[in-house]
């Protein structure tokens, strides 16, 4: 009797595993990363949807070509937050007997700009959830896959955190400034 119930549990587990869309069963996996380590009220933060594909599998550009489907994302955001459409890098052109497609192999970073509202209070972590759906294909088959990913970051005031775009500008200014030579500037006159 006991053996039977263990067997039932084992069977139930294997049945569950068969239906679950796990990282090992998927042909593409997504991670969500952030360009800053906090959300700042009134500022835009760029999130990265980093897709890693198994060898020989591909996902599609926003215009997939003769077949295929671009990835889609549904965000769950706090009130007043907005997320941009997905921004895609240059795809690879894939020509097969079935036609022409625009795809990504191996790895691709898709970007989404998230605007944090001015009204957002500073405080502990806020979680943004992305429910992603995509079509992944190899030469022989196509599969729809899905994954939910999330990112949690604290809300901080701008005073304690440098804006990414400004920081890049300042960093570049310092880089240029380090090679400043008054003598060569004078000589150039």
């Amino acid at each position, binding site marked *: 009797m006991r053996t039977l119930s263990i067997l039932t549990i084992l069977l139930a587990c294997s049945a569950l595993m068969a239906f679950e869309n796990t990282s090992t069963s998927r042909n593409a996996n997504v991670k969500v990363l952030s360009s800053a380590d906090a959300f700042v009220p009134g500022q835009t933060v760029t999130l990265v949807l980093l897709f890693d594909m198994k060898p020989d599998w591909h996902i599609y550009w926003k215009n997939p070509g003769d077949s295929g489907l671009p990835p889609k994302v549904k965000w769950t955001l706090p009130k007043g937050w907005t997320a941009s459409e997905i921004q895609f890098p240059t795809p690879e052109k894939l020509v097969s007997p*079935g036609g022409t497609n625009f795809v990504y192999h191996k790895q691709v970073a898709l970007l989404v700009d998230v605007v944090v509202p001015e009204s957002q209070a500073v405080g502990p972590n806020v979680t943004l959830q992305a429910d992603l759906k995509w079509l992944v294909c190899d030469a022989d088959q196509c599969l729809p896959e899905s994954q939910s990913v999330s990112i949690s970051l604290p809300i901080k005031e701008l005073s304690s955190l440098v804006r990414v775009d400004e920081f890049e500008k300042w960093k570049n200014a310092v880089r240029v400034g380090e090679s400043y030579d008054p003598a060569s500037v004078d000589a150039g006159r």
Partner: protein
Amino acid sequence: MKWMLSLAAVALAGVAFLSSPILAGDDHEAKAKVGQPAPLFTLTDQTGKTHNLADFKDKVVVLEWFNEGCPFVKKFYVNGDMNTWAKSYADKGVVWIAVNSTKSSNNESDKKIAGDWKIDRPILSDADGTVGHAYGAKTTPHMFIINKGTLSYAGAIDAKPSADASDVKGSKNYVAQALDEILANKSVSEAETKAYGCSVKYAK
């Protein structure tokens, strides 16, 4: 003299180059065009029966590009939608035929899936892709309607490119629209749409 000869050789080589056929992106036969006669074919179905398109020259024929492994095809079978549509138009005299241009398919595999998915209409085996290329079938599904020998519709089934069966309801059905117009002796208002789905897994 030697100089003259090599000049002649270069000129000949140039002519040979120019007269060789120019190969475009793919080297398959000219594609079927809406408003033009539909390419004729003879293929066998999952029961071994031969079907010749010329036999249906007085009929309205739907060709449905099929691959049971494709999620966009499954979308229209999990709830029986494709079978329901095929049956309801068959009642109005429309011949609805599936064509399988998947390289790994054959009459036997088509027979099995016809049983599993309760498909009682022909699934024609085109594993070498000849008919698929003649029609320019790009995706599964990819739909074509032939009205008395003339290609009258080419494109998607419906207007919602997704693999979700829950999207079928409420999506504009281009094939039903075209069939209804043809059966009412009207011109087809949207005769060409962009098909969506998996790429056809052609042998070559």
